[in-house]
C-alpha cells in the first residue's frame, strides 16, 4: 500500500513542522510580553522630555542651534530603515522594506539625493541584493535595545544634519499599536518640529540658561525618538512573529486533520479489498 505509507510520511513531517512553529509562537509570546513592557515603560520619559523641549522651544531658535536648523531646500535626505535580524515574522520585514522603498522613490522623483542607513539583517540583505548603496549597516542590535544603542545609531546622523550634509532624516519603523497591529510608518526626525502650544507660555526659572538647556536636551530628545523606534520595532517584530507562527500552527493542525482522514480512508480501502479477496478466494474453493 504505497499511498498509505506516503501519507504517513507527510503526516510525520507536518507534525514536526507544527512542533517547531508552536515553539516559535511560545517564544515570541514571552518575548513580546517583555517587549511591550519596555514600550510602555519608555512612554513617560518620552512624554516628559517632549513637554520640556516644547516649553523651551521657539521657532526663532533655529538660527542659533544647528540641530534646529530649517533647510530651505531639501537636497539630501537620510532614510533610516529599522528591520528585524530574523525572518519568519509574517509580513513584518517586507512591509517595512516596501515603505522604505516607496519613500526612497518619492524622494528621488523629487530630485532629492538619498542616503540609506540600515538596521537589521533583513533590510540589509534586501538592499544589498538590489545593489543599492548603503551608507551604514548594523546588525548588532538585539531584542532588548538600550538608549545607548539608540545613541550610537543616531550620533553620526545628528552630526550630519547639524553639519549640513543632510537636510532631513526619516525613520522607517513599525508603530506598535498592539500585538496584532504593527503598521510601518515614516517619522520625520529632522528637521525637528516640536508642536508649539499657543497657550500662554509659562515663564520658567531656567538653570542654566535656556540655550544651554536646549543644547543638552535636544540630543537627548533625538536619541529618545530613535530609542522609541527601536523598542517599538522590537515589540512589533515579536508581535508579528507570534501571529505568523500561530497561523502556521493552526494551518498545520488543519492539514494534519485532512491527511489523517485520507490516510484512514486508504487503510480502510485496503482492508476492505483484502477481505473481498479472501471472501472471493474462499468462494472459489467451494
Amino acid at each position, binding site marked *: 500500500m504505497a499511498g498509505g505509507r506516503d501519507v504517513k510520511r507527510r503526516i510525520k513531517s507536518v507534525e514536526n513542522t507544527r512542533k517547531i512553529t508552536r515553539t516559535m509562537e511560545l517564544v515570541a509570546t514571552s518575548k513580546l510580553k517583555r517587549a511591550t513592557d519596555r514600550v510602555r515603560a519608555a512612554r*513617560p*520619559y518620552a512624554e516628559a522630555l517632549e513637554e520640556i523641549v516644547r*516649553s523651551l522651544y521657539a521657532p526663532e531658535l533655529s538660527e542659533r542651534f544647528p540641530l534646529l536648523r530649517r533647510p530651505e531646500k531639501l537636497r539630501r535626505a537620510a532614510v533610516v530603515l529599522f528591520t528585524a535580524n530574523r525572518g519568519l515574522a509574517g509580513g513584518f520585514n517586507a512591509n517595512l522594506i516596501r515603505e522604505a522603498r516607496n519613500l526612497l522613490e518619492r524622494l528621488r522623483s523629487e530630485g532629492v539625493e538619498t542616503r540609506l542607513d540600515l538596521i537589521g539583517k533583513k533590510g540589509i540583505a534586501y538592499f544589498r541584493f538590489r545593489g543599492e548603496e548603503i551608507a551604514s549597516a548594523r546588525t548588532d542590535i538585539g531584542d532588548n535595545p*538600550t538608549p545607548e544603542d539608540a545613541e550610537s545609531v543616531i550620533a553620526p546622523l545628528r552630526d550630519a544634519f547639524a553639519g549640513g550634509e543632510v537636510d532631513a532624516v526619516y525613520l522607517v519603523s513599525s508603530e506598535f499599536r498592539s500585538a496584532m497591529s504593527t503598521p510601518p510608518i515614516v517619522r520625520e526626525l529632522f528637521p525637528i518640529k516640536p508642536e508649539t502650544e499657543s497657550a500662554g507660555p509659562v515663564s520658567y*526659572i531656567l538653570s*542654566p540658561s535656556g540655550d544651554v*538647556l536646549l543644547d*543638552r*536636551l535636544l540630543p537627548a530628545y533625538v*536619541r529618545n525618538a530613535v530609542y522609541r523606534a527601536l523598542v517599538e520595532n522590537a515589540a512589533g517584530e515579536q508581535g508579528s512573529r507570534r501571529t505568523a507562527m500561530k497561523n502556521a500552527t493552526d494551518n498545520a493542525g488543519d492539514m494534519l486533520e485532512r491527511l489523517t482522514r485520507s490516510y484512514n480512508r486508504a487503510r480502510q480501502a485496503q482492508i476492505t479489498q483484502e477481505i473481498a479477496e479472501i471472501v472471493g478466494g474462499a468462494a472459489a474453493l467451494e
Partner: protein
Amino acid sequence: MSEKTLRVRVVSAEEAVYEGDAASVVAPAWDGRVGILPGHAPMIALLGHGELAIDGPDGGSETFYVAAGVIKVEGNEVTVLTEYAGSGPPAEIPAAAILSPEDVEELAAEGQSG
C-alpha cells in the same frame, strides 16, 4: 492657596522609577543641590550627578542616585528625567548622558568667568 504636597515623577529612558506624593524634594542640580517645596515657581534645571531625596508627606523618605538629566517643576508637579536612577552611583556613566561630571565642571567654570 497652594496645595501642600508635590506630585513627583522620576523617569529614566527605560522605565518609570518612582511616582508619588512628597512634602519636599532635594535634587542635585548641576550647580548644587536644590530644594523644592510645594508652591515652588516653575523651573527647568539640568541635573548633575548625586542624590535625589524625596520626603514623603507622612515622614518617610526615598533616595535615589541620579546621574545627569533634567528636572521640571510646574504647579506642584515635579518631573525628574534622568539617564540613570538607582540606589548607588552607576558602574559607568551612560554614553548618552545629558551632562557628564566633566561637563558639570566645565559649566560651573563658565558660570564663574562669565
